[in-house]
């Protein structure tokens, strides 16, 4: 039987933690948001190039735990090339997943890469770690709020 801990720290997450995709700074970004989780000190900078409603490029930078780093890495891979509306839909799917009842059955066929975050549901203290990049994204793609700090404690 796979333990809850193995569910949380799946190989995919460990891999994204060690070799995060889209890690770095986009100097020509036209959208940027900062995320902060005061509980564990996670800091995240998200840079996007959005043209004609499409996320042309995205990078993230900062320091954080394995869960938040892997989440940012997977999220940036997923949203690159997507429209804003598609990104928002992914945000909703992610949000519904991590906040759902751990006992509830989930149709994993629809989730794709997000499936690795199923294990987070068992760890209430860690949901915020996984959500931080997504909330920072929501902030970045909302207009007129490019430099505001997103905090998981608000």
């Amino acid at each position, binding site marked *: 039987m796979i333990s809850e801990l193995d569910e949380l720290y799946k190989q995919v997450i460990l891999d994204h933690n060690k070799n995060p995709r889209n890690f770095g700074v986009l100097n020509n970004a036209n959208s940027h948001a900062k995320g902060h989780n005061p509980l564990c000190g*996670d800091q995240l900078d998200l840079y996007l190039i959005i043209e004609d409603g499409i996320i042309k490029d995205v990078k993230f930078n900062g320091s954080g735990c394995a869960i938040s780093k892997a989440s940012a890495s997977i999220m940036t891979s997923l949203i690159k090339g997507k429209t804003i509306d598609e990104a928002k839909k992914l945000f909703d799917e992610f949000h519904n997943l991590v906040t759902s009842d751990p006992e509830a059955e989930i149709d994993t066929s629809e989730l794709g890469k997000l499936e690795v975050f199923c294990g987070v549901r068992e760890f209430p203290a860690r949901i915020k770690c996984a959500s931080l990049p997504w909330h920072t994204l929501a902030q970045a793609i909302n207009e007129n709020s490019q430099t505001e700090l997103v905090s998981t404690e608000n």
Partner: protein
Amino acid sequence: MENLFIDITEKKIFDVEKIRKDFPILSRLVHGKKLVYFDNAATTQKPKQVIETIQNYYSNLNSNIHRGVHYLSEAATKEYECARKIIQNFINAKHLEEIIYTRGTTESINLVASSYGYSNFKEGDEILISAMEHHSNIVPWQIICQRTGAKLKVIPMNDNGEIIIEEFDKLLNEKTKFVSIVHVSNSLGTINPIKYIIDKAHRLDIPVLVDAAQSIQHLKIDVQDLDCDFLAFSGHKIYGPTGIGILYGKKKHLIEMPPYQGGGDMIMSVSFEKTIYNELPYKFEAGTPNIAGVIGLGVAIRYVNNIGIEVIEKYEKELLDYGSSLLSDMPELKIIGNAANKASVISFIIDNAHPHDVGTILDREGIAIRTGHHCTEPVMRRFNIPATSRASFSFYNTFEEIDVLAKSLKKVINLFN
């Protein structure tokens, strides 16, 4: 005479298994594993003597103090004041009325900053704190500095997490109006040379507050010997209940200081024209206090006294040395805070593993540690790290529990490296 000697010696024989039986929570399981409680710097567990006292208070004594002439009120008042005497003796305060009940260390410091600070600080004055203060010994002084125009000055520390004492000497000057210093750092374990700091400050007539939140449970404290002007600590870190703390203040300061809060119990008489404040310590104890908390704290301190604070200090030092040597043997692990003089706190970071991940993995092994910035963000910045993991030991911990910690840390290291 011989019997008496044996009696005293027997009391001081340290039997950790016997002590553990006094703490009901230590026998519970967490995630199916035996609880290993290493978050003692955050709060300590309570012996059954304290738990039963609180239950007994609400079952048999509950009433308001200093008010009724009825039996219950008199009995509760007696217990409440008896605890003050226990605390006075514990820290060797000269006068009973120098012991003031507060909600905790934070409120004790706020009381001094607000009451003493507001009536004594002015523009251009300097308040001295250290680089390793808990937020609760930073923010109250910032608030009072903003109100009075005084400036906050910070004594720096070295890479081992020790105060640079020459810098302290240099920072002290005729503009310095107050020194507020932590005795033991909650995030590094450093024991600061407070006696030196107090002596040096007193040569310039500068009062000193000692934040004893992390020392009162580990070290013998004698406020007359230290000669500190104020001392603050919390009940819940010394095996007592939450929501009760102590401010010790020298009588000469407390008499001059204006009240911190107004309300019932802190007055002698009230009219709309003029109110006469109550005498010490009641002048600083407005409103119905945490009566059960006070009585519980008295029992907690009696419990610590029965083991003996020197015995506790010696055993906890052995735990610290054992833990430090096991953890130092792991090349992927780095201990943050290597002061020559330390209390039983080990902060550490692990290569490629964020403290938050460390905390989650240890939790599943039944081990409770603290992860994060420990309310000392400037300390984290000083060491250029976002957070640490922290294991803090109490006299009810065992060497075997430290073995469990070391084994689990090896698992973490393997997972992330």
